[in-house]
C-alpha cells in the first residue's frame, strides 16, 4: 500500500525531486517588489490562519495571491491545502497538499492526516486509507486516543465509500437555476409537498439590513421564496418580508406540506426553532415553539408530520445518544420530546431531519451509520412500531463531505439539497435530485428454430426479473376553496377523518387570500374530507386509499354553498352494504355532521334523497335509493331529530349528475344527498 501511495504521489505531482523554494531575496532578488507583496500576503494570511478559531477562508485568499508569485513553497502549499479543507471547495486541497509533500515530506507532522483527508474528499478511497494508516500514531504514544479513533472512523468511512460508490444511485442532479441560485450561497431548501413552492436561505446581496457578518464577511442570511414555473423552472426568488427576514440571520428549517407554516432557525438561546404562519400572502412574525422543543442547547433542524400535529427536531441537548440527536414531540401535547433511539441516533451527529408526507419515511443526515464521510443522508421507514435500519442514499447524492438538509417531494421523485458543484452559479447552490430508481433492465429478444421440420422460429423474450413499484404511497389532495355564488376564495377548515375510526386525524385551513389548500393522505386509510365554514353548508369528499396505493395528485376545487332553500349537498361519506340499505359504520361521522347541522339550525328542513346509476332495472333502482334515503332519515330520527323536519325520496337514475357512460360518471351518480327544503 505504501508503494502504491508513493507511486500515486509521483504520478500526480510530476517532478519527484523538487525542493521547496523559500520567499527570500536569494531566490527572488530580481523581483523585490513582487517578493515584498507576496510576503505581505503571507503575513496577512497567517494572521487569519493563526486565529483561534482560524479563519481559513479569509486566510486562503491571501495565500493564493502569494502562491501566484511562488508556487513551490512547501509551507504555503500546506497551508493552502489546509485552508481548502476548511472551505466550501474541500477537494481542491489535495493538489496543494500533494505538492507540499513532494517539496518536503516533513513539511508538517499532520501532512499524512491531511493528505488522507484530501484523498478521502476526492473519493480516492484506497489511497486515503493508506495515508490515514500512515497518520496513525505509534502504539503507546501518549494523548492520541482521540486521533486514533478519528482515523479509524475515517478509514471505515472510506471503506463505506468504496462500497457505495461501486453501486451508484441512479439520479440526475440539476442546478435549481437562476430563479433560485445566485453567485452567493443558497442552502436549506424546503418545499411544499407538491413542489409548487420552494423556500430557502440565501446570503445574497440585498439582504435585509444590507449588513455583512463580521466573522465571515458574507451577507446575513435571509429567507427567499420561489414558485414552480413550468416543469423545470423556478420564478425569480423574492424575500419573505420583514416579518421573517430581520437584520440578523434568518434561516429556513422546515415547511408544512401545505406551505402554510414555516419553521425558522434563530440564534437565540443557543440556537432555537420558531414557527411562522402564512396569513393570506403575508407571513406572520415567527413565534417561539416552547420549552418542550427549545432548550439552552442548539436546536437546528425540524420537520412537521403530515398531520401537522407533531414535530421531529434535532437538538444537542443533554441526555442524547451522541453529539446531536433527533427527537419527536407532539406540538400541542404535554409530554416531553422523545429521543428516536439508537436505531436512528448514533454516538456521532444527526442533523437535517425531514419527514416525508407519507408520514412514515424519514430522511436525515448522520455522521454515523455507514457514512462515507461527514454527514451523509439516510432514509428510515417507520413500520410495525419501529424505525428500519437507516439506508444510505448512496453515491453521488452523498459524498465524502457533509451532505445535509435534504428534502423530498411527496411523489418521492425529486429531492432538494445544497451543494458546492462545478456547475454552480457561485458558492453553494441549491440542486434538484431526480431519482431514477433502480436500473430499468433493457429487454432482449431472440428466437430459435426449435422444430427441425419447421422454418418458423419460436420467439423468446429475455426479460430481467420484475421491477418492484417504488412510487411513494401518498395522495396529495389540493385545490381552491371558494364561495359558490361569488366565486371568491374562502378560508375554510379542512378536516381529514379516518372513516373507520370516525376520528379527525388532522385539520388544516385553506389560505385566506387564495383559498388554496393541500392535504397529504398516506395510503392505507378510508378518508373522509370535510370542508366547513361557519354560515356555509359543509362539503364532504371521500378518498379510499388502500395500503400500497401509488402516489397520486388530485386537484379538487371546492365551492361551499350558503344555507338557502333549494341548495343540494352530496354526502360522500355515507356508505351502504352492497345492494342493501344498511348503513355501514364508516358513515357515522357524516351522519353526526348532518345531525349537528340540524341541531344548530332548528328551522332547517331537509329532503334526504337516494340516487343510483343506470345499471339495473328502473323499479329496482328507485326502490333501493328510496330505502337508502329512508335509512338516513331513520338514523337521524333515532338521534332525536324531529321527524317532521325530514322527508326522503328515492330518485333511482332519474337525476344523474354525470354521464352514465363512464365508470367515474356512474360512481358520481350513485349518491346520497340532501336538499334544503326550509330554513
Amino acid at each position, binding site marked *: 500500500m505504501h508503494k502504491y501511495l508513493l507511486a500515486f504521489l509521483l504520478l500526480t505531482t510530476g517532478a519527484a525531486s523538487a525542493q521547496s523554494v523559500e520567499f527570500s531575496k536569494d531566490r527572488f532578488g530580481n523581483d523585490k517588489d513582487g517578493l515584498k507583496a507576496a510576503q505581505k500576503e503571507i503575513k496577512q494570511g497567517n494572521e487569519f490562519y493563526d486565529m483561534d478559531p482560524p479563519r481559513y477562508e479569509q486566510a486562503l485568499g491571501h495565500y493564493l495571491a502569494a502562491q501566484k508569485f511562488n508556487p513551490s513553497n512547501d509551507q504555503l502549499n500546506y497551508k493552502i491545502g489546509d485552508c481548502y479543507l476548511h472551505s466550501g471547495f474541500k477537494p481542491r486541497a489535495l493538489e496543494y497538499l500533494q505538492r507540499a509533500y513532494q517539496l518536503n515530506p516533513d513539511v508538517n507532522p499532520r501532512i499524512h492526516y491531511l493528505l488522507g483527508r484530501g484523498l478521502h474528499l476526492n473519493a480516492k478511497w484506497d489511497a486515503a486509507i493508506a495515508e490515514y494508516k500512515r497518520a496513525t500514531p505509534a502504539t503507546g504514544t501518549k494523548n492520541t486516543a482521540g486521533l486514533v479513533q478519528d482515523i479509524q472512523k475515517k478509514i471505515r468511512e472510506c471503506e463505506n465509500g468504496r462500497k457505495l460508490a461501486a453501486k451508484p444511485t441512479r439520479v*440526475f442532479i440539476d442546478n435549481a437555476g437562476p430563479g433560485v441560485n445566485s453567485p452567493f450561497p443558497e442552502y436549506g431548501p424546503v418545499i411544499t409537498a407538491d413542489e409548487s413552492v420552494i423556500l430557502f436561505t440565501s446570503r445574497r446581496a440585498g439582504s435585509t439590513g444590507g449588513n455583512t457578518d463580521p466573522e465571515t464577511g458574507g451577507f446575513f442570511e435571509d429567507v427567499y421564496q420561489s414558485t414552480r414555473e413550468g416543469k423545470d423552472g423556478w420564478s425569480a426568488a423574492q424575500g419573505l418580508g420583514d416579518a421573517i427576514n430581520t437584520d440578523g440571520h434568518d434561516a429556513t428549517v422546515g415547511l408544512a406540506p401545505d406551505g402554510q407554516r414555516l419553521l425558522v432557525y434563530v440564534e437565540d438561546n443557543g440556537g432555537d426553532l420558531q414557527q411562522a404562519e402564512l396569513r393570506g400572502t403575508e407571513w406572520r412574525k415567527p413565534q417561539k415553539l416552547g420549552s418542550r422543543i427549545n432548550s439552552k442547547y442548539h436546536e437546528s433542524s425540524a420537520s412537521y408530520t403530515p398531520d401537522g400535529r407533531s414535530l421531529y427536531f434535532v437538538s444537542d441537548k443533554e441526555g442524547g445518544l451522541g453529539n446531536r440527536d433527533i427527537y419527536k414531540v407532539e406540538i400541542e401535547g404535554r409530554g416531553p420530546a422523545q429521543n428516536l433511539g439508537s436505531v436512528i441516533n448514533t454516538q456521532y451527529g444527526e442533523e437535517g431531519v425531514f419527514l416525508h408526507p407519507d408520514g412514515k419515511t424519514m430522511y436525515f443526515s448522520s455522521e454515523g451509520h455507514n457514512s462515507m464521510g461527514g454527514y451523509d443522508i439516510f432514509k428510515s421507514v417507520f413500520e410495525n412500531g419501529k424505525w428500519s435500519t437507516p439506508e444510505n442514499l448512496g453515491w453521488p447524492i452523498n459524498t465524502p463531505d457533509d451532505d445535509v438538509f435534504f428534502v423530498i417531494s411527496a*411523489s418521492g*421523485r425529486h429531492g432538494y439539497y445544497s451543494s458546492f458543484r462545478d456547475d454552480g452559479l457561485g458558492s453553494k447552490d441549491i440542486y434538484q435530485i431526480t431519482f*431514477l*430508481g433502480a436500473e*430499468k433492465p*433493457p*429487454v*432482449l*429478444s*431472440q*428466437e*430459435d*428454430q*426449435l*422444430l*427441425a*421440420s*419447421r422454418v418458423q*422460429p419460436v420467439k*423468446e*423474450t*429475455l*426479460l430481467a426479473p*420484475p*421491477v*418492484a*413499484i*417504488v*412510487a411513494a404511497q401518498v395522495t396529495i389532495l389540493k385545490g381552491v376553496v371558494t364561495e359558490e355564488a361569488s366565486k371568491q376564495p374562502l378560508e375554510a377548515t379542512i378536516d381529514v377523518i379516518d372513516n373507520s375510526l370516525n376520528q379527525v386525524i388532522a385539520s388544516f385551513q385553506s389560505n385566506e387570500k387564495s383559498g388554496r389548500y393541500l392535504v397529504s393522505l398516506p395510503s392505507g386509510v378510508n378518508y373522509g374530507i370535510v370542508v366547513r365554514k361557519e354560515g356555509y353548508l359543509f362539503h364532504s369528499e371521500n378518498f379510499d386509499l388502500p395500503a400500497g396505493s*401509488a402516489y*397520486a*395528485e388530485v386537484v379538487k376545487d371546492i365551492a361551499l354553498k350558503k344555507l338557502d332553500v333549494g341548495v343540494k349537498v352530496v354526502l360522500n361519506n355515507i356508505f351502504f352494504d352492497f345492494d342493501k340499505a344498511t348503513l355501514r359504520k364508516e358513515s357515522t361521522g357524516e351522519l353526526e355532521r348532518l345531525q349537528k347541522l340540524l341541531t344548530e339550525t332548528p328551522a332547517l328542513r331537509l329532503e334526504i334523497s337516494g340516487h343510483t346509476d343506470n345499471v339495473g332495472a328502473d323499479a329496482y333502482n328507485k326502490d333501493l335509493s328510496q330505502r337508502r334515503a329512508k335509512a338516513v332519515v331513520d338514523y337521524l330520527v333515532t338521534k332525536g331529530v324531529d321527524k317532521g323536519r325530514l322527508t326522503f325520496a328515492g330518485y333511482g337514475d332519474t337525476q344523474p349528475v354525470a354521464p352514465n357512460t363512464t365508470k367515474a360518471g356512474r360512481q358520481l351518480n350513485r349518491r346520497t344527498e340532501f336538499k334544503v327544503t326550509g330554513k
Partner: protein
Amino acid sequence: MRQTFLLSLSLLLSAATAQAQVDSVRASTLPPDQQAERLYNSGVAKFNQKSYRAALLDFDKALTARPDFAKAYYNRAAVRYELKEYQPAVQDYNQALRLDPNTFTPYFGRAQAEEALQQTEEAERDYGKAAELKPDYAPAWYYRGALRFERADYTGAKADFDAALKADAAYAYAWHDRASTQRQLNNLPAAIQDYSQALKLQPELLPALLNRAATRRRAGDLKGALQDYNDYLTRKQDNALAYTNRGAARYEQGNYKAAVEDFSKAVELDAGYAFAWNNRAAAYLKLEDYKKAEADAGKAISLNKEYAEAYLNRGHAREMLRLPDAACQDWRKAAELGLEVGLTHAANSGCGAE
C-alpha cells in the same frame, strides 16, 4: 422434410424412406382389361419424372376406367399435393380411405395436406390414426409431435417423439425436436443430451447447434453456449439469427461491446431483422450510449410497430436523454402491447396519469 409416397399395387411402402416409392404393376397379375392399371403405372412413372400435370391426367383416366381404384385416388392426391392443390388432395384421400379405410398411408397423406391447409386439428387426428395403424412408422409420431409442440402441448409432444425414436432410433429430427420439447419443459440437461444425439446422427443439422447453445445459456453454461455459437458461425456466416443469439449471450456475459459487434453483423446481413436492432439498442443502453440506443430501438419499432420490447428499451433511452414525456409514452405503449413492466416503469418514474 415432407414425405410423399406413391403406392404400387404389389409392394408395401418402405416407411423409412422419404422419397416417392414407385413400382410398376406386374403384367402377369393384371386382369384381362388392364387399361386402368396401365394408366396408373404410367402416372407413377410421370410422377417420378416430376411431370405432375401429365401424371394427374393419367390418374384421372385410370379412375375413369376404374372408379373404385383406391390406390389411384391416393396417388392422385399425392400429385395434387405436389401441385399445391391441397383441398382436392384431401378429397382424393377421402375417396381412398372410403375404399380402403385400414391403410395408414392415406391418413398420413391427408394429414400433410390438412397441415398445408392449416387444419391442424384434423391433421393431428390423421397423424394419430396413421400412427395407430402403423406404430412402427416413425414419421407419423414425429409429425403429430410437432403439431402438439406448436400448440404448446409439450408433454404430448414428448410422448410422440419418444414413440418416433422407439420406432426409429436413428431419426435425427426426432432427437432434435424432443430436445426442443425438453427445453420447453425445462428439462435442460435432457434437452442438451438430445440435441447432442441429433448432431451426432446428423452433423449438418446446424439448428441443433444454435438450439443447444440457447439451452446451455439457459442452464447457466454461458461458456458452452458461446462455444456452440462460435462453432455454428465458423460453419455458417450468413445467418442473422445466429449472430443475434450469440450477441445476446455476449450481452449476458457482460461483454456489451462484443454484443454490439454481433448485433451489427446481424443487421448488416438482414437490415429488416427487428430483433437485432432492438438487442443492439439494449447493448447501447448498457454502454450508456443513449442516443444510439434510442435510434436503434426506433429502427426496430419502424420495422415492427407492435414490438413491445423495443418500445420499452426506447423508453429507457429517452429517460436518460432527459425526454421524460417521450419515455413515459414508450413505456405505456410497451404495456399496451403486453409488457406490463412498462406500467411499473411509468409509475416509478413519475409519469403520472395519462
